[in-house]
């Protein structure tokens, strides 16, 4: 067993786990943050995407020990003062989610994408979110939501 110290959504955590434990399992089981989902465990579907030191990363193909000392952000950290994040609002407004399973990973991916490309074209949005698979929406509501959120996020920066 090894000790892992990290910061998630601005809160310091410490846990002990086997060196082989996946980061996503550590987040879900040891930290109890079940908003981050496991969809494929081989780095394709993107449901487990979190922010790792400020960049989107797949927590299903990382070990918890690799996150020792890291700053993570998960979907649970997006809401502020009881209000949805503007990107979450846009997803709701534009029906960017149905079953909700890919949604946490999609939100974190889109957030990272808009950070690097604050005024994207539709084509760029599609490429930007192509790292996450959604089986429900046909991506249309998601693309609409990301497009709508882009200027709001850009102006808030």
């Amino acid at each position, binding site marked *: 067993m090894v000790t892992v110290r990290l910061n998630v959504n601005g809160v310091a955590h410490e846990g002990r786990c*086997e060196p*082989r*434990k996946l980061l996503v*399992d550590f987040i*879900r*089981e040891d930290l109890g*943050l*079940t*908003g*981050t*989902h*496991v*969809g*494929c*465990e*081989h780095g*394709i*579907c993107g*449901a487990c995407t979190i922010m790792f030191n400020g960049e989107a990363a797949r927590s299903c193909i990382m070990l918890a020990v690799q996150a020792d000392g890291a700053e993570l952000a*998960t*979907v*649970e950290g*997006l*809401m502020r003062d009881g209000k*949805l994040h503007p990107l*979450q609002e846009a*997803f*709701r*407004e534009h*029906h960017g*989610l*149905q*079953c*909700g*399973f*890919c*949604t*946490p990973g999609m*939100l974190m991916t889109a957030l990272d994408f808009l950070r690097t490309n604050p005024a994207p074209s*539709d084509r760029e*949005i*599609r*490429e930007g*979110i*192509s*790292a996450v*698979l*959604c*089986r*429900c*929406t*046909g*991506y*249309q*509501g*998601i*693309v609409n939501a990301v497009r709508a959120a882009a200027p709001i996020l850009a102006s808030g920066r």
Partner: protein
Amino acid sequence: MGVDLPRLVGARVARREDPRLLTGQGSYVDDHRPARMLYAAFLRSPHAHARIARIDASAALALPGVAAVLTGEDIARAAKPVRAESKTPDVKTTSFPPLALGKVRHVGEAVAMVAAESRYLAEDAVEHLAVEYEPLPVVRNTDEALDPASPVLHEDAGTNLLVAREFARGDVDGALAGAALVVRERFRFHRHTPVCMENRGCLADYATGSAMLTLRSSAQCPGLVRDVLTDLLGMPEHQIRVVATDVGGGFGAKASLYPEEIATCVMARRLGRPVKWIGDRREDLLSTTQAWDEIVEAELGVNRDGTIVGLRARVTADIGAYSIYPWTAAIEPVQTISFLPGPYRVPAYRGQARGVATCKAPLGPYRGVGRPPAVFVIEGLMDRAARQLGIDPTEIRLRNFIRDEDFPYKSPSGIVWDRSSFTGSLVKAREALDYQAARDEQAKARAAGRWLGIGVASYVELTGIGSAIPVSPGMPVSTGTEAATIRFDPAGKVTAVFGVASHGQGLETTLAQIVADEVGVPIADVRVLHGDTEVSPYGTGTYASRSLVLAGGAAILAGRAVREKMLLIAGHLLEADPADITLIDGRYAVRGMPDRSVAVRQIARAAYSGARQLPKGLEPGLEATKFYDPYYGTASNATHVAVVEVDHATCEVKTLRYVVVEDCGRMVNPLIVDGQVHGGVAQGIGAALLEEIVYDDHGQLLSGTLMDYVVPSACEIPMMEVHHLETPSPVTLGGFRGMGEGGTIGAPAAIANAIADALAPLGIEVAELPVSPDRLFRLIGARTG
């Protein structure tokens, strides 16, 4: 009574389930971790067909943290075998043991189960299970399966031909012999798998003190699972609770009973501890029910003007190793021949269906069930006939559609189509696309050597099926009713409880819209509960595009019953005749006298405040439970048009435009209807171009990861243009028609036809889906050298 609240039915109401799902507060199976819980893992067969000579669990059991190992024999002592019975002799009933008993019939079949203190330890233990297999010859495909020299997978059936069914009307042989033109094709729709983003999983907890079994499962049909567990486990129905609150996609994949659900219940009952199994993606691709895998040999006879004189077809489905509960092996092939005549007047028809067992994962329901292949076939034949006769593909359809004056129309397979908009949807789709402009554009592109094509697909499906016919042919389980309980609390807020379950369809929103309208409260005052057999009235679940029709109809009936009582109470409180009470601005008022009114909460409080607050003899309380049975079901139709371009160098197919004109009757929430169409079309495009389950000659799954099984990303899916016709169903309460599956029904045919149209100068027809770049490369190469 007039209701002049803003009508919620028909409004684009943002979904009520979204805030919790957007903030990571969903309640999926894997999010639950009761105290003392064990984690399960399954050992799965590496062989496609083999006898199990011996299982040695001693090394696994010796590992620290391992609680128990179960094998097929252990399960057989604790649970009856699953047998998907059929009422018709056309379907042979076979057993599907939760863990392999004696032999395995496909790669990935569950052989043994381990429960341990962590998932990691459980998987370690699986590695330590020693199983001795004696391999048997692999039955690789339907041709081999039907060869008398091949081994029989299910000895008790005596044959691999598990399903044989025929529909016939008129003299089809004579009609085809006399036809001006007969087009023939051997269509092949390869094997597909649903890929819900949430893998299947379940969590069973058996409380020994109360003898109560609770199963949380990623299930579409909690009621159906509860009913069958009662039988299999020999437990009373009221001692079993099945919960499926948040489910990460279903698409039919989670509509069947699964071996892991039974095994997990048996393990939990045996150990008296909660046991959770969460499948990984490999297990999903190996063992979740798959779709299609059909060969359809079909012939369509037409007159010189393109009118249909006869249709003859034979469908052979590779149903895999097991007939699944409750739908049976008949579900895919028999649905395919049932829907093959499409929205057309087909005077003579003979459709034969065969379901053949092989060493692959079982076939099960998947979005559209049988209709995507059926539409691929009939729409492909219509286009072939049009091309050969020099008729425009939209024109040949208009000449053959069941006309408005023909409704209700009985199809050759016995389905009755109520008043629908077959012609209207195609006409509107042509307008929406600006069909002539698109053809002009195509002509220019062709002149420039580009491969640009336009593909049309029109279809009709049966939704909201009631008790008159089984959802799956021959199935003895009744699926014809659903119920709603609507209950006011004394503060005037409403809880509405349903036996259906939502896994992305937004039923918490649409059913709340219906309830709110019926009882006259704002939507914020309605809470919808679903997917929990403990709290809901009797029901089975969500499948077959039924929930909005059946549960929505039940909501209307229960809402009306509650409203009647509210009028009586309001009349009493206002000292007025209940017949004179009307609802104005959310208050029940005396007609023409808005000052004499009571708020909903005053009525609700009175309902629970004893005799003096109530009309003489009126029972206290304010709630109602009503069941709804639409008896037959209702048609739902659409026309899809795709414009595609095939890349000369890479054979990549780009979808340039995609237009849908759908008719789901009265729309409850256009936002959600659009979303269902978008998602359905995306799955249909994936099915047409990318997605294929591939087994090798040894029955090994080659498409066992999401790198090999290609689900479309946002880059492969176009922006879709969705338009609506609203022909209220004449046969359902509320005029609703089911629509969740439709996108996937129309899209494969529209894409296939568009590609064939693009490549028409080369004389290429598309008879095989998915038409992946490599298949397209071979098709084009064969023509161009």
